[in-house]
């Protein structure tokens, strides 16, 4: 319930940004001619949805913060961990909720952008754009897990270390912004996404052990 408002805001903002990206591109096409905009996209690496680059992981971080900070500040997690269930099961159910929410959010944004862009550009160009957005969405999934890992860490010293590790991990997804730049790193991205899902469990274990 605490995440309801945040999810609604994030969904609304992502829809608005998607529509704004479309309107902005239509404006650029009217001013500069479609042939020049296509040239910039195909040969000069112009992004169709540059605003999504940092917004997508930011949405994930927001959902994670809204979900897990109250657990720590209101000491709810302590009570939750006293339930007759393994901490890994408790954490996984909380994380699964977050990941599922993000999946629905991102899927909505993905298909909205896909169909809006397809009305302006050929499928070849749109595929490149969606490949670019997919990397940012994966950055979002990883950011969600790593933010939970940071928030749930009981000691501030290791929270700061976790922030450093998390920032380094996510920065790898922003080295190359060209479409299809991560084509040969798909397995690396998948492994990192799966692994980041389990990092918060470790913080939870440390929290429960009272370290």
């Amino acid at each position: 319930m605490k995440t309801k408002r945040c999810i609604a805001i994030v969904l609304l903002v992502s829809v608005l940004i998607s529509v704004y990206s479309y309107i902005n591109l239509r404006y650029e096409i009217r001013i500069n001619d479609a042939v020049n905009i296509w040239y910039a996209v195909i040969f000069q690496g112009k992004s169709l949805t540059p605003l999504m680059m940092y917004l997508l992981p930011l949405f994930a971080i927001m959902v994670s913060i809204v979900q897990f900070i109250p657990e720590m500040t209101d000491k709810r997690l302590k009570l939750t961990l006293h339930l007759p269930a393994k901490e890994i099961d408790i954490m996984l159910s909380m994380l699964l909720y977050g990941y599922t929410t993000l999946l629905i959010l991102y899927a909505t944004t993905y298909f909205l952008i896909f169909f809006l862009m397809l009305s302006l550009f050929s499928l070849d160009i749109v595929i490149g754009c969606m490949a670019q957005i997919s990397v940012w969405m994966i950055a979002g999934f990883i950011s969600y897990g790593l933010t939970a890992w940071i928030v749930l860490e009981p000691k501030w010293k290791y929270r700061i270390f976790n922030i450093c590790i998390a920032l380094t991990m996510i920065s790898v997804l922003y080295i190359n912004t060209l479409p299809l730049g991560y084509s040969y790193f798909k397995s690396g991205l998948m492994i990192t996404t799966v692994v980041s899902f389990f990092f918060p469990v470790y913080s939870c274990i440390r929290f429960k052990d009272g370290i």
Partner: protein
Amino acid sequence: MNYKRIIHLLILFFTVLLSSWLVPAFVKKLTYKSQNFPLVYYSSILKELCLIDFRQDKDYFHDIKGNAYQRAKYDSLLPLMNYRQLAMNGDLPDSIDGYAIDVKTLRSKQIMFRFRPTDIFSPQPCMGVLLESMPKRGILTLPGDYFRMDNNQITFIDAGSNKINEAKSSLFTKEMKKKGVKFPIKHYWGNPTTRKAYDEGYFFTDSKGDFYHLKMINDRPFVKNTMLDSDIKIRWFSMSEVMDKRFYGYIFGENGEFGILESTEEGKYKFKKIDVRNIDVSKDEITILGNMLYWTVKISDSKSMDAYGIDAMSLSAISDYHINKEDIFWDKLSKWIFPFIISPTSPDNGFINLYIESFSAKAFWINVLLALFFYIAFYRKKNIETKKKIFMLIFISVTGIIGIFSLMFVPKNQIL
């Protein structure tokens, strides 16, 4: 091993992976000094390759035999490189080697070409643009549509309406098939810019491996088989519309051949090999500085450089020079302290991946000493299980300084 230890090990592993990128990168930033090869240029006066590096030696430059020449003579001894300066000063000679020279001729014969492995190994444009090769107003403009090569046709899509131009697609596809093109096209190469003197369209290889020329003349297709398949198997082609229209571009063969695609007087195509060593497109960087009489071809990789003075007409080598890269402080330091350096980027590849930049067995000796030191200083007397002590010994022996750095970031668990 329970799931707690597995997750701890996963965190440790990823921290080591990231540290093996970041820590060497940071140390490199602190210690690295630029180590470029000198500028190499074939002197038409000295008839030898010259090495020019005024950052290292402000007052002199040298030829490959070691002779030194004063900087004041730089323009006059390299007239075909510095013709603009000589012309400004009124010192441009009337002729060299019996050939009359003037600024206009020299400009039209100038060649500058650079190839890097990332030209091949990076995301390629998803579509092409076929310019009008004989524009009515004499300037090149974007045609309004872009093409892609489908499985059985070429498809032109109008940018304004975002719709397929069926008539143009059909016209070009029919002409291509009439000239023997077998779809799907394996690869195509062009120079998609209007900032050039003229346009020669695209070259492509079809499914049989035949190399074709495609351009648009007065909105109609021009398709011609270059008939080169008997001479060379093409790995890559770099289009280059030179001012004197002598050739179309540079060909890289499957077996390391490198040369130009010349146009003949009969309108045919000819592969002319440049007399240099075999090229490995995944590692070699190539620079060509050419003038009306001589080309200077420089081929370098991470370990060495080969330079050639080439006769501009025959493309045969008349001088050559080899130099190995010297190990600088960073190279020596990294070999001893980092057993491996991992990076998500590579200077020879535009794609993100896990690249092992270097691997050094020397560093393992330091790691073993470090592991023993840590064992004696911290773990010998503590009440820790033997298998955990062994794990730490092995961990520090393998990862060394990077592993110790990573351990600082990861909270202690039952493992330590």
